[in-house]
């Protein structure tokens, strides 16, 4: 059994809210903007405590992105908050021109990403956001796995100069990473060591990968589970070291296969160390309404599917 203990289910978005509130207390340059989803993004504590540094933009995400870009010109560090769908696809050109191309120090913080948004269905379940964001030159892209890591990442990105996309989710999920552990942008975290196969995961699928680790161990397969919360810049050093050791890689993410973590990993491996790879991801389809665990199962993203992918990659 792996040594990670679920200290209790918590939502990653609350980790963001807590990290943002902490930043509000320690860094007067930090400001926050929200497009009418303050409660959903858990930004209330910041908004209540620092009203002069909180900008309610109403349901107008394009304007929010532009205002955030402008606030950097006065030396502020803006954090925008809305659902992942409205944080990326809806405002892609605003991010591209006013933030990325203009080199503005804006932190785009996106909740309710992926299928686990649940019952609201496919209109809100964006599965393309990581691909959209990682294509933008200079954009750092992060997808965190639990409450503690989301809080730590929120704090860490305030010290990074440049635009960042931070993706997290809606449901309460196991909270298992160490509290107060500093988040290192661009550094993958080896959660279990193993020689037989490398499992690379991020977001909600890191816990699924750890569940898969336990089952695989019972049948004599030792998996090296690595949390790749930073998709860009990708920690190629850690990836290659593990892939050279195991010779087999499985990726797992709550995103389209096209444009996601697996895509980045596959590119890095094929350029540097070609080896068999299997991908656990959404395969070119939209989601639907349902409970998060039902959706992960139906779309092939749970621990069982990771185990199947491991078995497939070991046969190649």
């Amino acid at each position, binding site marked *: 059994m792996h040594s990670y203990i679920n200290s209790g289910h918590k939502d990653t978005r609350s980790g963001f809210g807590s990290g943002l509130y902490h930043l509000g207390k320690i860094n007067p340059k930090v400001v926050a903007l929200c497009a009418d989803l303050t409660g959903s993004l858990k930004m209330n504590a910041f908004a209540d405590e620092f009203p002069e540094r909180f900008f309610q933009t109403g349901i*107008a995400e*394009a*304007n929010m992105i532009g205002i955030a870009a*402008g606030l950097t010109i006065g030396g502020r560090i803006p954090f925008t908050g809305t659902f992942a769908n409205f944080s990326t696809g809806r405002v892609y050109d*605003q991010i591209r021109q*006013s933030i990325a191309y203009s080199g503005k120090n804006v932190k785009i913080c996106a909740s309710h990403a992926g299928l686990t948004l649940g019952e609201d269905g496919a209109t809100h379940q964006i599965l393309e956001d990581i691909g959209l964001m990682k294509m933008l030159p200079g954009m750092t892209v992060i997808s965190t796995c639990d409450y503690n890591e989301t809080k730590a990442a929120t704090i860490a990105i305030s010290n990074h100069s440049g635009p960042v996309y931070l993706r997290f989710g809606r449901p309460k999920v196991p909270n298992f990473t160490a509290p107060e552990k500093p988040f290192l942008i661009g550094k993958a975290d080896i959660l279990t060591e193993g020689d037989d196969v490398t499992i690379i995961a991020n977001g909600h699928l890191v816990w699924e990968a750890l569940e898969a680790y336990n089952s695989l161990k019972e049948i004599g397969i030792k998996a090296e589970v690595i949390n790749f919360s930073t998709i860009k810049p990708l920690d190629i050093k850690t990836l290659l070291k593990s892939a050279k050791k195991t010779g087999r890689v499985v990726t797992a993410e709550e995103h389209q296969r096209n444009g996601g973590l697996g895509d980045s990993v596959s590119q890095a491996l094929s350029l540097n160390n070609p080896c068999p790879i299997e991908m656990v991801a959404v395969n070119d389809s939209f989601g639907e309404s349902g409970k998060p665990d039902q959706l992960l199962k139906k779309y092939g993203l749970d621990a069982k599917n990771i185990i199947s992918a491991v078995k497939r990659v070991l046969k190649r």
Partner: protein
Amino acid sequence: MNNSIELIPSQVRRDILRMVHAVQSGHPGGSMGCTEFFVALYFKLLNHSPEPFNMDGKNEDLFFLSNGHISPVFYSVLARSGYFPVEELNTFRKIDSRLQGHPTTHEGLPGIRVASGSLGQGLSVAIGAAEAKRLSGDKNLVFTLHGDGELQEGQVWEAALYAGSKNIDNIIATIDANGQQIDGSTEEVMAMGDIGLKFEAFGWQVIQIIDGNDLSQVIDGLTSGIKHSGKGKPICIVMKTEMGAGVDFMSGTHKWHGIAPNDEQLENALSQLPETLGDYPL
């Protein structure tokens, strides 16, 4: 400066035409229509410090060009007011230049604070900069320029609503009402109705400039805008201009929106515009 400011627009128009002619690309029509506006702002009204350029612009007024395609007039006025050497105008739209087709911070050109070109984004960015000024107690102002056709972009109205609703009274947005856009007149393409009334309905104080190619009228209109700032409402200046103003055969038509003059046309145009401050060397 007051006595000599009248000499500047003719030189700026020469710069615009020579820049666009040299690379046979760029947008002279709107640039020439807004020449008096840029000259009034940068040589008379803006509290700014060109050297050294400071991105944050603390304790100075800021300007954002939202309709970035009129970069030639912006570059000419920035160079002529000391942001970078006038000789650099010769690199406009050429490879390895800081003077990109549309303005950008990417190559580090002094005077530019955000990229623009994809329309409709500048007012939001300016509001952010205005909010940053309010937050830090900086009493200086934020100026913007937008095309009238550009107002067809929905984001402009998101921003207009925000500024009116949140009483952003340190912003002065000017609309270049030349009545033209790429596919024809705004009347034909997408009739704008009364632009001033629209902004008033969004909670803005509106000021009209009847002839935006009359330098003294532009100075008066902007001065009135500055006087009305700080009173709880954002300021919108609706400024009527002629595209291609200053050259008879280019004036009052959308034909010269994105077309460069040929050798003969350049010669004809320059003969109508006295060289007042010295042309930049080719």
